[in-house]
């Protein structure tokens, strides 16, 4: 109950602080202004958030579309294919990866990955690099949660599949994964939410240029990076517009979690 009230308090605060942005700047300017060059006074600045929003959506959705199948398959590997010792070691490695702080990923990305990608296609800091780093970061999250979901499938299902003479592959793909559907959906959506909220790593490897990318090797900026780079000195309407960015993030997360709840409820009470 306390956790819930904390979230409500934070949400109310963010919405409250964004109100000057909505009244002084207005919803349509966030999409139709020339560029993102904010100023403390709304009439002097440009507040187009669309490229930044596109940056967040492209980077996180692309990352989860790679991390989701990889994570689920690696969880399946851990549960059903790997010998016990290998599985234990593999699970430990994934848990360690999940614990690495995001800024460490960002540092590695900036110092190792960016020069490599720069050699293939300058400038190096780009949407592509961001997707790679985000995938590496959310893969362990998805894998661990999927692992728990797969482990909670009742043993009777596995025994029934064995009794029917199904192969390991068929059991995994056609029996276990559908049975663990709701847990897997949760795993994927939580990974996606983490990718949307990632800040430090993204600031270091994405380039931070406010532009709609024309290709995967163009730099982008995300909502989280905008808040991190500018909150230190923003005042007046600029500060309010950064809170509005926060509001958009909260809204995205709420939307995804609500979707997850609805899908899970359907799966649980549906035909399964």
């Amino acid at each position, binding site marked *: 109950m306390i956790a819930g009230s904390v979230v409500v308090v934070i949400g109310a605060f963010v919405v409250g602080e964004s109100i000057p942005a909505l009244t002084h700047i207005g919803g349509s300017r966030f999409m139709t202004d020339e560029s993102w*060059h904010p100023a403390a006074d709304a009439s002097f600045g440009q507040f187009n958030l669309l490229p930044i929003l596109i940056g967040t959506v492209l980077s996180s959705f692309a990352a989860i579309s790679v991390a989701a199948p990889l994570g689920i398959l690696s969880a399946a590997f851990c549960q059903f294919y790997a010998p016990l010792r290998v599985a234990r070691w593999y699970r430990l490695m994934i848990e360690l990866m999940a614990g690495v702080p995001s800024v460490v990923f960002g540092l590695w990305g900036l110092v190792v990955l960016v020069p490599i990608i*720069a050699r293939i296609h300058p400038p190096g*800091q780009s949407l592509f690099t961001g997707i790679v780093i985000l995938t590496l970061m959310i893969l362990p999250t998805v894998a661990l949660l999927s692992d728990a979901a797969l482990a909670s499938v009742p043993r009777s299902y596995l025994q029934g599949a064995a009794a029917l003479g199904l192969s390991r592959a068929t059991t995994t793909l056609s029996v276990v994964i559908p049975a663990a559907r709701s847990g897997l959906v949760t795993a994927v959506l939580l990974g996606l939410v983490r990718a949307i909220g990632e800040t430090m790593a993204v600031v270091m490897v994405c380039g931070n*240029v406010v532009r709609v990318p024309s290709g995967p090797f163009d*730099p982008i900026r995300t909502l989280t990076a905008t808040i991190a780079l*500018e909150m*230190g*000195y923003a005042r007046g309407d600029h500060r309010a517009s950064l809170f509005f960015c926060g509001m958009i993030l909260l809204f995205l997360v709420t939307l995804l979690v609500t979707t997850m709840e609805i899908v899970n409820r359907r799966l649980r009470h549906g035909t399964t």
Partner: protein
Amino acid sequence: MNRRFQSVSGVIVLACAIVVGCEDSSPAVNPTQPVEVKQVTITGASTLAPLLSEIAKRFENENPGTRIDIQSGGSSRGVSDTRSGLADIGMVSRDLKPGEDDLQRFRIARDGVCLIVHRDNSVESLSREQIIGIYTGEIRNWQEVGGTNAPITVVNKAEGRSTLEVFAGYFKLDTRKIHADVVIGDNEQGVKTVAGNPLAIGYVSIGTAEYDRESGIPIRLLPLEGIEASVKNVANETFPMSRTLHLVTKSQPEGIVKDVVEFATSPKVHDLVRELSFVPIE
């Protein structure tokens, strides 16, 4: 009944925590800490942060019982935090603007801003027109300025950083017209970006660049208008794009803040200033 009591008391505890947290508390005088430990918060330009860290270390050694916290975030953050009371002292790596007359300023060192490229880049110097062309996106390929046939990666500083303002002011560029490929925050991020990309060009503080180059980082400082970019030329005032680094406070400093400001601007730390490749104010 028990459950309800728990939830209600939980909400009351939370509400109290919020009310207490919202109270205005000056960072310099924190009533919950023992009187002996004095804390000073300094925020602002990333150019000055390493220098102030060294000065703070020496000050803390000579004055046990003090704690100085230093954070970067840009000159605009330094000004903003000092005005709002979040910081005791602000670091500003430029001259103060007319609208900032309410702050007390103290000169601490002189520095320059120079362009850097990767050490392996064959381009030795760039003219004023070429630099403007590169930064407005008219010149996109190193071949057009005498280098290899490859696209230029333009590294620009984020808004709110005075290195950007000094650079844009000197070249008379509108910051909105700058066409960048990468936007960075701190000076060191710029150095790392250029050092990791042989096709990149950026601009940073001469102090930071010279110090990093001496440490072995593969960057080259480009001369400006024929004058070599070095601390020596900032000192003898021949380097054209130079600036004075300041500390600012909201009002006349008193107590521990006054001691810190006086120490940082005194000859006692000139060796630290020189070590980090800045020019001390004599």
